[in-house]
C-alpha cells in the first residue's frame, strides 16, 4: 500500500507534510474520477497511482470507468482525433446519438453522488447531463488548441455544464471556452512499478526474455501504435542510425487500450514496416510487456526517441528522463517543457536530424550521461506525482470550500 511518507526521500519531508496538511482539510470528503478505461494510456496510469495515494490520505475517492461497445469507442476515438485537430473527421448524428446513449446508460450505473466529480477526457463528458449535487470538473488530457470546430461545437454545450475545466497546457484551452479553467501539468510516480529503481540483473533478464542483446546499444520509443506518435518515423530513424552504428537495436513498445480500436490496425502496419529486420522489437501488453518490462526497457535505452506529431503532454518522455536517459524528440505537446535542447536531450525537426542526434549520443556516451542526469533532476524538481496530488487537493478545497 503506497503511503505519502514513502515520497519524502525523493521530494523532501516539507512537501510531504504540506500534502498531509491539505488532505486534512478535506478528510472524509467524497470524490469520484471517471474515465474510459482502467488500462492503457496515460490517464489510466495517472489515476492508478493518484487514487490510492489520495485514499491513503483519508479522502474517500473512487475511480470508475465507462462501459461501452466497440461502436462507442470508435466514435470516441474519432472524437479524440478531431479534438486534436484532425479536420477530416466527421461525427454523424447517429454516431453522436450513440455516444450520448452509452453515457446515459453509464450514468445510471455509476455512483456519481459525490462532493467532487472529475470526468476525464471526452468519452465520459456527457455524464454531466445527469449531474446531481457536488462540483463537477472536466479534466481534458488532450491537445485541444485547434480542435475540429464541427466536433467541438457539439461538445461545447456539455462542457459549459461543468464548474471547472482542467488542461495540461495553457495553449490547449480552446478559444471561447465559457467556463473557468486551470492548468495542471501531468506528472509521474517515481515509486510505481514503471518508474521505481530496478536492479541491473533484473533489467538484463527482461531484455533477454524478449531476445534483445544486452551487450549492444538499444534505442526505443514507448507509445501507443497510433499515427500521431509516428511509429513508422521511429523505424526510419533507426534505419538511418543503423548505417552509422551497425549494432544498434530498436524497441517499439506500445499497449492496446480498450478505448483505442485503431491500435491493432496500426500495430499491424508497424510490423509490416519493420519487415524482417531482426533488430527491431515491436512489443506490447499482448507480449506480456507490462509496467515492469517498460521500466526495464526504458532503463536499457541508450537514447529514447519520441517522434509524436501531437501529444497530450508526453509522459513517456518524463519517464525516460527520470531514468537518466536522454530523449530525442519532436516539439509536440509538453515535450519542450521537458526536453531542453542540448541540456536534457535534443529537439528535432525531421527524421534526418533526429537520426543525427541519436547517433551523436551513441558515439558520445559521456554526453548522453550528462544530459540524462540533467533530465532526471529536471523531472525531480518539476514533474513528480506529489505536485499533481497537491494541485488536486487545492482544486478540491477551493471547489467545495474549507471545512470547519
Amino acid at each position, binding site marked *: 500500500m503506497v503511503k505519502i511518507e514513502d515520497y519524502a526521500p525523493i521530494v523532501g519531508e516539507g512537501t510531504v507534510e504540506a500534502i498531509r496538511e*491539505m488532505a486534512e482539510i478535506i478528510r472524509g470528503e467524497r470524490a469520484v474520477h471517471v474515465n474510459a478505461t482502467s488500462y492503457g494510456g496515460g490517464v489510466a496510469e495517472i489515476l492508478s497511482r493518484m487514487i490510492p495515494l489520495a485514499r491513503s490520505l483519508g479522502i474517500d475517492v473512487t475511480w470508475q470507468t465507462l462501459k461501452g461497445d466497440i461502436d462507442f469507442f470508435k466514435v470516441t476515438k474519432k472524437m479524440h482525433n478531431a479534438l486534436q485537430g484532425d479536420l477530416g473527421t466527421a461525427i454523424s448524428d447517429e454516431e453522436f446519438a450513440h455516444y450520448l446513449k452509452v453515457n446515459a446508460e453509464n450514468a445510471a450505473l455509476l455512483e456519481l453522488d459525490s462532493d467532487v466529480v472529475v470526468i476525464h477526457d471526452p468519452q465520459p463528458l456527457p455524464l454531466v447531463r445527469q449531474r446531481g449535487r457536488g462540483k463537477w470538473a472536466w479534466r481534458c488530457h488532450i491537445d485541444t488548441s485547434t480542435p475540429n470546430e464541427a466536433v467541438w461545437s457539439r461538445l461545447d454545450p456539455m462542457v459549459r455544464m461543468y464548474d471547472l475545466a482542467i488542461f495540461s497546457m495553457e495553449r490547449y484551452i480552446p478559444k471561447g471556452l465559457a467556463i473557468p479553467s486551470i492548468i495542471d501539468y501531468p506528472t509521474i510516480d517515481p515509486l510505481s512499478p514503471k518508474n521505481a529503481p530496478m536492479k541491473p540483473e533484473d533489467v538484463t533478464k527482461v531484455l533477454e526474455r524478449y531476445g534483445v542483446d544486452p551487450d549492444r546499444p538499444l534505442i526505443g520509443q514507448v507509445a501507443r501504435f497510433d499515427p500521431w506518435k509516428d511509429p513508422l518515423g521511429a523505424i526510419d530513424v533507426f534505419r538511418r542510425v543503423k548505417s552509422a552504428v551497425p549494432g544498434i537495436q530498436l524497441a517499439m513498445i506500445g499497449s492496446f487500450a480498450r478505448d483505442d480500436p485503431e491500435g491493432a490496425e496500426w500495430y499491424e502496419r508497424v510490423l509490416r514496416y519493420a519487415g524482417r529486420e531482426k533488430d527491431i522489437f515491436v512489443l506490447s501488453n499482448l507480449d506480456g510487456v507490462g509496467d515492469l518490462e517498460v521500466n526495464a526497457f526504458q532503463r536499457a535505452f541508450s537514447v529514447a526517441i519520441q517522434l509524436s506529431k501531437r501529444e497530450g503532454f508526453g509522459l513517456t518522455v518524463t519517464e525516460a528522463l527520470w531514468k537518466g536517459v536522454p530523449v530525442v524528440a519532436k516539439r509536440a505537446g509538453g515535450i519542450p517543457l521537458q526536453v*531542453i535542447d542540448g541540456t536534457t536531450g535534443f529537439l528535432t525537426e525531421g527524421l534526418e536530424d533526429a537520426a543525427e542526434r541519436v547517433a551523436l549520443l551513441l558515439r558520445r556516451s559521456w554526453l548522453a550521461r550528462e544530459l540524462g542526469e540533467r533530465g532526471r533532476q529536471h523531472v525531480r524538481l518539476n514533474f513528480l506525482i506529489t505536485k499533481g496530488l497537491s494541485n488536486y487537493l*487545492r482544486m478540491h478545497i477551493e471547489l467545495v*470550500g474549507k471545512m470547519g
Partner: protein
Amino acid sequence: MSLQKFLVKGATLEVDKPLIKALEMFAYGRHPYRILVTNGEGRVVGIITGRRALEILMGARGTGMAEKRGLRGTLEENVGIFMDECHEIFLEDIGVEALLKFMVENTIGYAVIVDQSRRLKGVFHEVAVLERLRGKRFGADVRSFMSKEVVFARTGTSIEEAAQTMVRKRVRRLPVLDSDGRLGGIVTIGDILRLILSEVETKDGLERDLKEISRAPVERVSSTKTVSTRPEEDLGAAAERMLDNEVSGMPVVDGQKRVLGIVSRIDILKAVASVIGIESLKAEING
C-alpha cells in the same frame, strides 16, 4: 557566462502567511506579477500570480470557499491553499543558454533557480535578458511578431466584466477602446487588485462593497497614460519602451490609435531569438 549575474531576488512570501499579504504585494511597492511561495527554510514550494489572486476573489475556480468562508475569511486563509505548483524550477548549475532555450520554446518569461535543497537562489527573468539588449536593433519590426488576436474591453464595460475577461482569457491586461475603436486606456490585473485592496482596508461589509464597485465602469481603474508601440518599431526599441515604462506588454497601434495587435516582453525575446538565433542572443547578452 555566469548565471549569477543574471539572477534577481524575486518576490517571496512564506506559505503560512494569509492571502491578503500576497494581495498587498501585488498592489503596492514594485507590485510584482508573481510571488514565489517558500516554507520556513526558504525552500520554494509554489507560486502565486496576480491572475490567480483575481481568480480567487472572483470565485472563478469554484465558489465553495467564498460561500463557506466569505471573502474576508478567504483572504485570511494561508496562501499555501491557493498557490499553484511551480514547474519552472532549475538547479543553480544550469546554463544561461539552456534557460534561454527553455523560455523561448515555451513562451515562459522566467525560471526559478534553486540549490539541491530547493532553497531559492534567484529568478532568471526576461527583463534581465532584455536589459542586456538595450541599444541593439535587429532589423525586424514588431508587426511580424505581435499577436493579432487582441482581447480588449470597451469604454463603459464594468470592472467585473473586465476582470472576468482577464480571468477567462488568461491575459494580464486589456486595452480599453473607445466607441471609435481607438485606444483610450489600459486596465491591468494589478489595477483591479489595488482597487479591491483599498476597499478591504477602508470598508466593512466587503462583499456588498465589492459587488458595488465591480459594477463601476472600467475607466475608474484603467490608466489613460498608455504605453503602446507602432507596427514598424524595431524589436529592440519596443523592448526598451517596455523596460523604461516597467510594463510586461503593450498594444500595437496605428497612426489613428487603432489597436492592431499586442506584444509582450516574452514575445520580443522569442522574436529576437528567431531573428538572430539563440547562439547570437547568448553572445549579445554576454557582450
